[in-house]
């Protein structure tokens, strides 16, 4: 069986130990850089598709995130020891909106963004609208990702939309929204003023790439 297919099956079985053995062996022969590009990226893409179409569980997604996080660290350590220069994308901002404290989804998004080469400032739980925008302006971020699990807290994202617009950053600072409630109620993206959403953590890098490009276009045209 091909390594990507084997890894995918292990993630579906939530078999972390088996996955690590497999990946370590492959990395010892081919290196962590190739592991990231040739194994993890295509497998995560496939897992993301399966998550959306077959409804994978959070436990399976968690295993995938842990694998991504741990092997990204190994790759970074290898790069540091060889003094290679890693060119990061971004920066971007992540956080849970005011009153929302469900961190796991946000952390998984951060993991997959970092695995995809993004510099992420993770502001944590229960973050005020002004804090998101202050940090974005401070570090030059063009995308803010905000997470909410429930409808009651998702509504607070409207204040972040208002803050972005109030500071004349509309379009230049893109608003990505996500969390369980947006999967159940996609119409909520528009209701709270989001510029885009991803159905799961694995789709987040593609969303942030698209929103970053839109922000750049907006900047160049103004």
């Amino acid at each position, binding site marked *: 069986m091909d390594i990507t297919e084997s890894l995918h099956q292990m993630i579906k*079985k*939530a078999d*972390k130990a088996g996955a690590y053995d497999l990946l370590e062996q492959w990395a010892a022969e081919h290196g962590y850089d190739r592991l990231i590009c040739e194994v993890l990226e295509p497998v995560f893409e496939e897992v993301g598709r399966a998550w959306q179409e077959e*409804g994978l*569980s*959070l*436990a*399976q997604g*968690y*295993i995938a995130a842990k694998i991504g996080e741990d092997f990204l660290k190994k790759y970074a350590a290898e790069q540091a020891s060889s003094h290679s220069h890693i060119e990061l994308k971004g920066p971007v901002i992540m956080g849970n909106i005011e*009153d929302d*404290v*469900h*961190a*796991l989804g946000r*952390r998984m998004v951060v993991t997959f963004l970092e695995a995809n080469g993004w510099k992420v400032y993770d502001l944590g*739980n*229960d973050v005020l609208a002004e804090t998101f925008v202050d940090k974005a302006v401070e570090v030059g971020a063009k995308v803010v990702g905000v997470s909410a699990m*429930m*409808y*009651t807290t998702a509504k607070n994202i409207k204040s972040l939309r208002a803050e972005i617009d109030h500071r004349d950053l509309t379009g230049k600072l893109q608003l990505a929204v996500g969390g*369980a409630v947006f999967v159940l109620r996609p119409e909520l993206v528009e209701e709270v003023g989001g510029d885009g959403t991803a159905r799961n953590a694995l789709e987040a890098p593609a969303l942030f790439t698209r929103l970053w490009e839109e922000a750049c276009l907006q900047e160049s045209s103004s």
Partner: protein
Amino acid sequence: MNNRERVFATLGGNPVDRPPFTALLSLYGARLTDCPSQQYYTDPAAYARGQDAVRRTFEPDILFSPFFLAGEARAFGGKIKFFDHQPPNLVEPAITSIEQLSSLDVPDIDSDPTLVFFREAISQMAKTSGEYAAIAAILLNPMDLPVMIMGMDGWLQTVLFDTDGFKRMMDLTVPFFTERANALLEAGADCLVTPAAFLNPSVATRDIVERLALPILRDAFEQIQGPVFIHHVGSSFTAFLELFADLPHVIGIAVDHSDNLSEARTKMGTDMTLVGGLDGPNIWKLIPEQVHARCEEILLDRQHDPRFILATSGADVALSTPEENIRAMHTAAESFSHEVRT
């Protein structure tokens, strides 16, 4: 036949005068009594007043104890936050990793203020409403309670990667759950409702449920001196439904509005009570006529199912829900019964 008698007749598969119905109106009682959130979730008398108002206003056949899962987290030392328009939520769990378990103080169910609140609320509900309606006590089972003690992240990490840590946590939560469950039954609850938030197809794998959870739940439920309902919490439950059907003392399962009720019935067999139908947190978006029509549609589908209870699925009915929408459940049950008889 009063509401309480109707529920017990349904549990036994016996004829009833109209289809029973209920809605998760734990939070809604605060609206009916104009009670501030913090008082409602800390003062047993305030909560019981709220549920008495729910009973008088909507006449549901089952009333619920506080749907306040963060309260269990608070009892273990977690920090919670009160909100005006939703139940209190966990802000910071007592611990974040299994390595910190030894520092955790297991709360005493007879003296911890939050745990006493739950029990007293049930006791007072039993006094004011227990003669008329069945009372269901909501509490977390041993596999779901750790999510509140250490957060989903820490618990997933433990379940997936730490066999010894998993066992140590179960050594703590099983006795806590059984002692508390029996105390709530003794206080006046007719049955227990335990949310399967972690043991849900959207979170756990089938292997986790079969290999790890079922032996734990079998052991815990055997020690319970009353009937248990499993609640789906917020997503489709059909994929795991049959796994819970033969656990000791489990007499019913509450499924999601997205679950097919016929399929659920087939998977759980005919001896258990099936609960569900409406999307509770979102019925505020409908008009009463739509709620009525949806209830009729569900009741028609279940008309030959003697162990079915029409109910809202998911979390609390939102505070913004018009009272007429909730009344429409009652009128649908009443009119359906009339139509069937005539």
